[in-house]
């Protein structure tokens, strides 16, 4: 009897595991429908201007499959003064890395989701898998974007082949900003899931095509890099990414007001455009811009005579450093739009986190400076 019990226990304990090993799961579902029993993760990690976001996780308006999809409305009103917003799906809810709740998704190699905009043209700056840090950090961080939505459902895929998926707490996330969506955006997401695709290969770093824009217009999906790296007397800087005052091209340009008040006591200030935001070389996310022969931009001063000490491409040094840097300056701005070029011939542009940077100081701008930038691009 004891023997039989032992046999039953052994079978009971080990047989399902053995069967499971033979038939490894092909997918891991996030969201199929509201209250679907297969759902995992909770869209609890609201970020940035959280007051600008509304979520309806049982929208019945034209779901992709089943009876519901998730509707997000982002009004771009900067409720918290951030200028951007986003949502992470976490496990358990509100886990920013303080709890050991991530899933081991080894065996999966892509995340897919369906999305559509209410009107079409809505821009999600980026979608993410992993990347939450803290005491229990995600084992990987992958980003894709920007994504410009259409008014019909379209499936999007994040390639995770070759990534370490042993611990994923931030299963999926999106982020966008008011520059990309000045009138706000309403969009729908459905059927989010991890999948195992036997034919999928790791994504090799692709060389970006030229021209590669840093700034085209305020809401352009062509824009790359984020003006997030504020340096020196950052309190002296006012940044407007959608200035309508006489843009060089299109409907907007960048207006920078540098007060020269030494708010932080440095005597200088500047901004680095980074990928992703606030990446000082701690995130492996450089663009391969090897095809770029130059970076060009247009600039003008409000009065003329404003002096920019340095204008730079690359040069961020960290665990993941930019592959090279190139600099011009000092530059004394004209009152009229003027084109400037940073020559990149002979430079190694294969890995660039810091796409563009300017710095100015109070010694050469004792009254501060107001200047404009437009059409910043690699060519």
């Amino acid at each position, binding site marked *: 009897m004891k023997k039989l019990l032992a046999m039953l226990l052994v079978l009971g304990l080990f047989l399902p595991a053995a069967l499971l090993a033979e038939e490894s799961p092909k997918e891991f579902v996030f969201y199929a429908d509201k209250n679907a029993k297969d759902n995992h993760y909770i869209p609890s990690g609201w970020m940035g201007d959280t007051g600008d976001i509304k979520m309806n996780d049982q929208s019945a308006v034209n779901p992709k499959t089943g009876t519901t999809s998730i509707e997000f409305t982002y009004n771009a009103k900067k409720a918290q003064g951030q200028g951007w917003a986003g949502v992470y799906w976490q496990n358990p809810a509100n886990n920013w890395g303080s709890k050991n709740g991530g899933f081991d998704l080894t065996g999966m190699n892509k995340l897919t989701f369906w999305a559509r905009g209410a009107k079409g043209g809505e821009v999600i700056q980026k979608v993410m898998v992993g990347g939450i840090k803290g005491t229990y950090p995600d084992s990987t961080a992958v980003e894709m974007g920007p994504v410009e939505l259409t008014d019909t459902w379209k499936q999007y895929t994040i390639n995770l082949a070759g990534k370490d998926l042993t611990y994923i707490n931030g299963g999926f996330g999106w982020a966008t900003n008011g520059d990309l969506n000045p009138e706000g955006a309403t969009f729908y997401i459905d059927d989010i899931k991890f999948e195992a695709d036997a034919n999928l290969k790791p994504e090799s770093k692709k060389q970006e095509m030229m021209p590669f824009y840093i700034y085209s217009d305020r809401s352009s999906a062509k824009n790359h890099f984020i003006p997030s790296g504020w340096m020196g007397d950052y309190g002296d800087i006012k940044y407007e990414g959608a200035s309508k005052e006489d843009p060089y091209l299109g409907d907007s340009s960048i207006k920078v007001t540098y007060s020269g008040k030494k708010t932080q006591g440095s005597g200088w200030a500047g901004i680095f455009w980074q990928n992703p935001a606030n990446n*000082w070389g701690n995130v492996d996310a450089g663009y391969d811009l090897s095809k770029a022969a130059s970076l060009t931009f247009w600039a003008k001063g409000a009065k003329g005579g404003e002096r920019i000490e340095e204008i730079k491409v690359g040069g961020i*040094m960290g*665990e993941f450093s930019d592959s*090279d840097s190139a600099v011009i300056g*000092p530059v004394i701005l004209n009152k009229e739009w003027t084109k400037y070029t940073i020559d990149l011939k*002979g430079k*190694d542009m294969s890995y660039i986190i810091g796409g563009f940077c300017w710095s100015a100081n109070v010694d050469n701008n004792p009254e501060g400076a107001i200047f404009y930038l437009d059409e910043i691009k690699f060519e």
Partner: protein
Amino acid sequence: MKKLYFFTSVFLLAALTLGMSSRPTPKVFIKKFKNGDYQLRVNSKPYIIKGVCYNPIPIGKNHEYDWWSDPNKPWEVDGRLMKEMGVNTVRLYQVHENSDEVKKVIRGLYEKYGIRTVLGSWLGFWEYPCPFYGDKKFQDRIKKEVLEMVRLYKDEPGVLMWVLGNENNYSCLGQVNPWSSDEIDKEPDPQKQKAMRAKTYYSFVNDLTREIHQIDTDHPVALGNGELVGLEFAKEYAPDVDLVACIIYRGKTFGNLFKSLKATFDKPIFISEFGADCYDAYLKKEDQNMQAFFLESQWRQIYGNLAGNKDGAGNCLGGAIFEWSDEWWKHNQDSSDSWSVQDTESNWSNGSYYFDIKAEGNKNMNEEWFGIVALSKDLEQGINPRTNSNIIDNKDSVGAGVNKRIPRKAYYVIREFWKKPDLNIKRKKK
């Protein structure tokens, strides 16, 4: 008469030919291979510079201390430790005015421990109020000093090369010790001003190089430079330098430094100052693993870019770790009380050294903790020249001793790397 003429001609021809063919090979020179690689040769043998920057200031003293004349001879204690590690070169930034003492150090390190010396000159970079490179009198005075140095030490067998300047190029950009001239001040465009300063400075270095070559054909002349900044001007105005000696602090990797140099100014490179501190400014404690990690990674890249390595640029001649021993005076140079305390406050930031970049204000670089050898307030005796040991007996008259040297982990890690350089191993971060 014809016979005499014939013999005379043959004799002259033979003398000329023999004279040309017997022109001695320089003691130290750089060989350029057909594939464009460069290799340093000493006595016609390949020589990888396995160097350290050397400035053995004892605890409680500052940079003005004359260690050259220290009766305890700190360089003897250090030389023995260096030899055990595998160091073959020390880099000295500037020689002392007492040439007899300088010769003793150079000769002692070479004869006792086989260690060669790189001799440098600041080229007046730290002179108050600034180095007037646009002023002829200033140039003449610096030139006199430099040529005097060359004449004094060129015949010392331990000398390896000359390094002109350190990070003086930054003064051309106005970043450190900015200088100008009437002609430059007249130019309204600041970019052109920068180019004019660079032309003046690099032309001066080139002029110095040519004069050194006239006096000393046995040792190469290096252009000291901060990073690769300004070398596009050096290509035009300082073509006669034999190599560049660059100061590089890029964390675990030198990035595309070697290839970038090849594209900008095709000269061999000696990384004349690089390294990592061993104090974690975030966790506020010493971290020898961190220092060892960065240094080993840096040496792996140096070796990967020596001549003959098909995956590298082939233009690196070696490097000098900054630095051999800690210097306790550096954080607060004006307060003599602080020279007896190893300060843990950082005053600059470098994201490439990322382990402790989250320190307050991102200030993670601890200037007093760069040594691969720590100093202790305990004293040990210097080498007794009579017995060639550090055992003291009653016959000897010695001073109070030198601060005890305590090798850090990096000392041992680099020692092992030099014994068996393996470029393929990727170690864990810490």
